[in-house]
């Protein structure tokens, strides 16, 4: 318990996203980039370093999303590492405009730089520069800060994409008092249409803290990138997060959940609807998973913390109506005596009653870790009886993870035949762990993409839905569309 408490305390102090209950809040930028006069139309948002220089003029921009404050902070300090020493200071300056984007800002469209806030001079290599930017942080919301210099020797401070997590920029806010957690969602940077609800979803997320590629949470270029997908979720500011299973590798231990997962996707724990995955069962009875999420993972069995059913349902308010969401446990051998997805099993009977009992709800989605269909062997046919129920009850979306890739199917019947009134399955197993490939592409598979990291933005409305894949900038990819509920 003491160890767990220490881990939690550490997590709250190093979290990339807001940690409202801590007296000190440490934030990572939600965007950073630089612009340079000799390349006026170029964007450098995805590079692993920033740049300040006076010849050619190069200015860095950083943006933070401050949340969790109940009063003006006593101090706000911007920390940036300079790889080289200098006798000329680097200046932190105010930027009033917070609408610039990481992948869009260029020298030609960069927002104006305002008054100087503070300066610091790098006296050694990898010196941590500290800038008092308290005057720019007066409450919750977006904060933009620029860095420049009068030195003609360029300096390249590591950016938020830098693989060395300890070198990334930080905004450290001293709240002075213990703040109260903010129960309401933070302001969104993306407008949500009236009468609709934004959901973020992906599976296959956090590496174990002892894995070689974990790298202090920062991962590598192609593995353990949960911190980056967490940033995407933060920017999306969804109403709910559907966490699609295999949330904590390699075995779903509670220690790893409290370390790796908590430090990344844990920022959204209170708005998360979790799905149990096969790797969660690397800990007996998925005890780490059920203990970490508590009743949120097993609302039908309050207090259960091991060997719980793991299937449940809930409604998502959308305007004046609801979407009905059923979460199934696709680890069929782990529940109900080992036949948890078979016809007549408790889960089967529950899902049948649940879907039939919500027949009046126009729009329905089912969440599963293992997909029913995949253009690889990363799927399970054992949930077929449950898919038959979904088809019979006009489920609109079947959302999955497990396959470490992105795959979207056209609507199809339970037997896999194309049908405009069928179930649309979308697999989003790109939450951070790593990437897997494909075998033979299935007939109704419309989009297949691997070697990407990212999350899906699912926007629900009263009669339909739209989807948009939000990729980590280092693995560009897009897929979007919409559908109507049947």
């Amino acid at each position, binding site marked *: 318990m003491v160890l767990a408490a220490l881990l939690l305390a550490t997590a709250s102090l190093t979290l990339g996203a807001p940690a409202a209950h801590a007296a000190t809040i440490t934030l990572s930028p939600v965007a950073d980039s630089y612009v340079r006069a000799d390349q006026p139309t170029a964007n450098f948002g995805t590079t692993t370093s920033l740049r300040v220089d006076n010849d050619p003029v190069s200015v860095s921009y950083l943006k933070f999303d401050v949340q969790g404050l109940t009063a003006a902070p006593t101090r706000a300090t911007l920390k940036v590492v300079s790889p080289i020493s200098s006798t000329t200071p680097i200046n932190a300056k105010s930027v009033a405009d917070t609408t610039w984007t990481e992948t869009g800002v260029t020298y030609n469209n960069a927002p104006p730089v305002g008054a100087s806030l503070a300066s610091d001079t790098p006296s050694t290599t990898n010196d941590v520069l500290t800038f008092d930017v308290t005057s720019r942080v007066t409450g919750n919301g977006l904060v933009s800060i620029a860095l420049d210099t009068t030195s003609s020797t360029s300096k390249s401070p590591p950016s938020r994409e830098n693989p060395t997590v300890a070198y990334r920029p930080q905004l450290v806010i001293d709240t002075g008092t213990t703040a109260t957690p903010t129960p309401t969602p933070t302001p969104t940077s993306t407008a949500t249409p009236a009468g609709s609800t934004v959901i973020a979803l992906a599976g296959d997320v956090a590496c174990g803290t002892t894995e070689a590629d974990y790298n202090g949470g920062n991962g590598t270029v192609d593995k353990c990138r949960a911190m980056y997908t967490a940033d995407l979720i933060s920017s999306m500011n969804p109403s709910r997060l559907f966490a699609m299973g295999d949330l904590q590798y390699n075995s779903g231990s509670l220690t790893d959940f409290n370390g790796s997962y908590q430090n990344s996707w844990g920022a959204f724990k209170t708005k998360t609807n979790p799905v149990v995955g096969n790797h969660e069962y690397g800990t007996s009875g998925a005890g780490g998973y059920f203990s970490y999420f508590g009743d949120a993972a097993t609302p039908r069995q309050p207090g259960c913390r091991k060997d719980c059913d793991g299937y449940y349902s809930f409604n998502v308010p959308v305007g004046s109506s609801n979407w009905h969401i059923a979460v199934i446990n696709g680890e069929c051998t*782990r529940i109900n005596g*080992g036949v948890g997805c078979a016809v007549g099993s408790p889960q089967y009977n529950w899902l049948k009653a649940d879907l039939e009992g919500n027949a009046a709800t126009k729009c329905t989605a089912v969440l599963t870790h293992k997909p029913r269909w995949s253009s*690889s*062997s*990363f799927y399970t046919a054992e949930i077929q*009886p449950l898919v038959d129920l979904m088809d019979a009850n006009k489920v609109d979306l079947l959302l999955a993870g497990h396959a470490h890739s992105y795959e979207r199917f056209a609507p199809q019947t339970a037997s896999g035949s194309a049908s405009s009134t069928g179930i649309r399955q979308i697999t989003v197993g790109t939450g951070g762990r790593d990437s*897997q490939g494909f*075998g033979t592409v299935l007939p109704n598979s419309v989009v297949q993409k691997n070697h990407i990291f990212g999350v899906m933005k699912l926007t629900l409305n009263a009669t339909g839905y739209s989807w948009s894949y939000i990729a980590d900038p280092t693995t560009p990819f897009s897929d979007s569309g919409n559908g109507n509920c049947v």
Partner: protein
Amino acid sequence: MDAITRTDQPLTRRRRPVRTAAYIAVLIAAVALLAVMISMTTGPTPSQPPAEAAGPPPGNRADVQRWFKAREKAQIELNDALVPIVQKTIGNAGPSSAPCRRLNAAVIALKAQDRAPVARIDELARAGLDKIEQAATACLAGDVAGAQRLAAEGLAERADASLPLDEALEGE
């Protein structure tokens, strides 16, 4: 330069390779015939998995994908057939018991599927089937308690093999 020297050899020496080639041809034919005879008596049976080659993780291999696809119906049927045993709603067991006969047919059908292209995958995917087959046999013999115990043991073996199977597909 060496090649030019060889082509300049006397004509009488050119005839000897022709005779040697004939001997070699006879020898090759004899070896081939022997190989065919050996393969007819000791060749691999269709159910033996082929040698495994390095390449993508099994989960990305088309042949493994086809293998899983081919056994889907048998796997689903076995799961459904197990429900009355697991839930202890089988009623009377015995040779004419419909649930016992269904379970027996289902487990035999699944066991009869071709071997997986990867031995490790095959081994893990078949975990528990022997016990479940014994459960079906007990069921047909009228031993309900034995059938339930053996089915539970088989399903436990299958559950234990579940994550290792997933990891084997991932290439771990």
